[in-house]
């Protein structure tokens, strides 16, 4: 039996507005607990929500960038449930009339391009956060996050593998960053994802019940959890053992999913229209002006990188996958003209260093001009490529100007024939056996002698010149 995995995602992205969705409190992350709250976002008696126009604008922008239809008439609803992080005991959300419907995102897969359909994008407010650690049997609650505007993006179950879901998440994150509506920082919780997954026989004769997975706080965790569940569902299907519809939690430490107690998921949210807010009516002209002012999106930039800079598709794909990386590249290109060299540095050393340090392209610690300077020092022979890698490591660690590093550490390449000849003669004198080997036809010995010369110059010898002079001296 051929088995197909079906994955649908629900992604929550915090909107990067300065103030909360229904009051003027700051949305800044990381403040002292309960310092960014007021009677409105803590749900005191008698207060009312005051809608944030910017949040609506950002949600419309996101909907348009995800190719959705924007509803000219939508409304907010109340989702009722009790939990201490939810100050009003209801979340203001959207139920049957979401702001955006029916969009799509195109992703690259092993089998080529694929379109993932978006069912809806709606607005809602975030809840606060419970703090369990360090208070004995008690838990404390921090309402700084309560009322921060969110969009929830719901896909159709169009992804057939964890890898496709991972590609979708990467692309979604890139789009939201390009249009500057969300920071998409998973570590700060500004992007979170729930997964719906099951397995189905290709002929649709059998399928497992859908598992919902929550508590996935990184893309990596999401993909790992999906891989785990994919295996579980496929095995269940092949064994003819139907799974039950349930909510499972990803335990990152043990790398397994665990069923949540049915009590935890037994919710009747009793949705009904939010009577404290009037429906959202958007003019066609308002939607049109947002559409016309949408910035360049990842797919468009990808095409432009190929046509404008002559980059290979692979390079263009990697560079445009992050707005920060693409911006960085283009800033380099304003002061330097070899696109491929810049691309090689960014895709190679820069991304490697970022990955090793668990950082984002937005965290590159030096300005584009420094990277261009480094490349130019190699171009004009001031330093060798191998020295350049060392300088780069230093730049990445301390954000220092490459010129200063080269100067301070005396790394300028030795291209003076006289100076190099002195070194070569010393090497020949001290390595008679190798010289003899070379003369006996063992060409490999040349490499050893070059190495010795490099050692004496602390790697600063101009490699081409050194090779040329050494061969000349030996012959």
């Amino acid at each position, binding site marked *: 039996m051929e088995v197909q995995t079906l994955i649908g995602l629900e992604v929550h992205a915090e909107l990067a507005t300065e103030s909360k969705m229904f009051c003027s409190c700051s949305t800044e992350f990381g403040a002292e607990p309960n310092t960014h709250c007021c*009677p409105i976002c*803590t*749900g*005191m*008696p*008698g*207060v*009312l*929500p*005051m*809608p944030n126009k910017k949040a609506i604008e950002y949600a419309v922008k996101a909907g348009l960038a995800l190719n959705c239809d924007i509803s000219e008439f939508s409304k907010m609803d*109340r989702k*009722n449930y*009790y939990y*201490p992080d939810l*100050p*009003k*005991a*209801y979340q203001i959300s959207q139920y049957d009339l979401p702001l955006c419907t029916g969009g799509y995102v195109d992703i690259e897969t092993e089998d080529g391009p694929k379109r993932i359909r978006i069912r809806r994008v709606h607005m809602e407010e975030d809840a606060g956060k419970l703090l369990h650690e360090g208070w004995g049997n008690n838990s404390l*609650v921090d309402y700084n996050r309560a009322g921060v505007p969110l969009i929830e993006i719901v896909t159709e179950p169009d992804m057939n593998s964890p890898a496709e879901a991972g590609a979708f998440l990467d692309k979604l994150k890139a789009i939201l960053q390009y249009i500057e509506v969300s920071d998409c920082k998973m570590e700060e919780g500004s992007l979170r994802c729930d997964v719906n997954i099951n397995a189905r026989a290709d002929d649709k004769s059998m399928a497992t019940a859908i598992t919902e997975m929550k508590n996935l706080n990184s893309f990596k965790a999401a993909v790992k959890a999906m891989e785990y569940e994919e295996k579980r569902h496929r095995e269940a299907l092949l064994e003819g053992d139907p799974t039950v519809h349930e909510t499972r939690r990803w335990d990152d430490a043990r790398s397994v999913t665990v069923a949540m107690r049915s009590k935890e998921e037994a919710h*009747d949210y*009793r*949705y*009904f229209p939010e*009577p*404290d*807010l*009037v429906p959202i009516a958007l003019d066609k002209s308002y939607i049109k002006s947002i559409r016309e002012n949408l910035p360049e999106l990842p797919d468009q930039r990808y095409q432009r990188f190929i046509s404008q800079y002559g980059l290979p598709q692979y390079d263009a794909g990697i560079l445009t996958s992050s707005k920060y990386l693409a911006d960085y590249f283009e800033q380099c290109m304003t002061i330097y003209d070899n696109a491929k060299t810049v691309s090689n540095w960014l895709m190679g050393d820069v991304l490697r260093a970022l990955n090793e340090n668990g950082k984002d392209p937005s965290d590159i610690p030096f300005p584009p001009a420094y990277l261009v300077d480094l490349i130019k020092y190699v171009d004009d022979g001031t330093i060798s490529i191998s020295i350049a890698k060392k300088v780069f490591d230093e730049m990445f660690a301390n954000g220092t100007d490459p010129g200063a590093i080269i100067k301070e550490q005396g790394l300028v390449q030795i291209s003076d024939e006289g100076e190099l000849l002195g070194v070569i003669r010393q090497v020949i004198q001290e390595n008679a056996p190798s010289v003899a080997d070379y003369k006996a036809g063992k060409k490999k010995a040349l490499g050893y002698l070059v190495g010795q010369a490099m050692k004496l110059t602390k790697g600063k010898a101009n490699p081409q010149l050194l090779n040329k002079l050494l061969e000349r001296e030996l012959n």
Partner: protein
Amino acid sequence: MELYRLTAHEAYEKLKKREVSARELAQSVIKHIEDVEQSIGAYIHLDFDAALKQADDVDRHIDEGHEVPLLGGLPIAIKDNMCTEGIATTCASRMLADFVPPYDATVVRRLKERQAVVLGKLNMDEFAMGSSTETSAFKKTKNPWDTDRVPGGSSGGSAAAVAADEAFFTLGSDTGGSIRQPASLCGVVGMKPTYGAVSRYGLVAFASSLDQIGPLTKDVKDCAMVLNAIVGHDPYDATSVSRSYPDYTSALIDDVKGIKIGVPKEFFGQGINEEVKSAVTKAIELFKEMGADYEETSLPYTDHALSAYYLIASAEASSNLGRYDGVKYGYRAAQYDDMIDMYKKTRSEGFGSEVKRRIMLGTYALSSGYYDAYYLKALKVRTLITRDFQRAFEKYDVLVVPTSPTTAFKIGERLDNPMEMYLSDVCTVPVNIAGLPAISIPCGLDGRGLPIGLQIIGKAFDEETILRVAYAFESNTPYHNQKPSER
């Protein structure tokens, strides 16, 4: 005449002419409260020192040569479901017995800006759920006309305080009749403005789509003055309507010639007391004598209004009252096993039985599987009722009906029979459902000497016509001058 007996506009005139000081006004009312409050029980919170201090501030302001803003220096009181900064706002519930808001409701702020002197907070049915003020967790308020009887509710404290001259005017809130019905039972003027005319910010929500704040006053002119002070768009209330609001006192003309009055027959049917019917009918005849035209008409969906109201109001309440969970403020049970147990015990102990009944009703109406049959159907009925009114207002300027089907009933008489209690609102709830403005004014006494209320319903945002018709009636009748103390 004792100063506390004056209407708000009379007292204000004396203050403006410097015939009396704000302190003298406050002292007169305070002295009177000390005499009668024991037998009335209108207040939950009274602070005479704070009131005298506010009065002295007003006097100083006058001494410095400033003009007193309209309503300035008048001792007034607020229903205890409107937030007052630094003063407990309890909703007459154990749940909020110790809740002190760090902010003023917009209406309170507006009255403070006009330098009104706040005496205290008024008793009410718990969370405004009730029609007799008997569901208050703290005390029973008596009807000043007969202290064996209820003042109506839920703004019973607000109505009783005005009827007993314990404040020049008060604010109440009206979700299904909670200003008009107690105004009727206590023989005072009470108005529910158009939904959206007065900000709800700081009014502890009962049913958000129905709640509206309004004045309870000694006469129609006072009502217009207070309305002037409290209406207006508020950026803190997304449902408050941005438009230009008139000076309502200029609508007060003693002339109803050419006014077209509709008399919907559904408001005179079964359950409406004969004496009430006859007083209202007499009032309508008087309007005719004064030059107005009237005609019987029909609002066919009225019969379904009460059912729809109790579903919609309870559904919204079940959500609005979810926040009282013991986590952030207010009551929390002393003993509990875990989080769920804390919620259960806190809410079981903190709420009274009427509030719990409505939370259960509302939760049920919104539950999956029942939503369509109850809540959604109620919304459809709401639309039909609204259309009934719209059609009627194509022909008529105002509708005139009774406010309450009966005069004041005995304390305890209906408390154990919720359905009978709910019927007290049968003439008032359709107005809330349609979001319209309406006033209740005294139109006579029944055989027991208890006041009867006349309800005048107007088009949305046409409070002016209502006030004009009410003012004309008042100008040609003695009822507003009848006082409980003179019986």
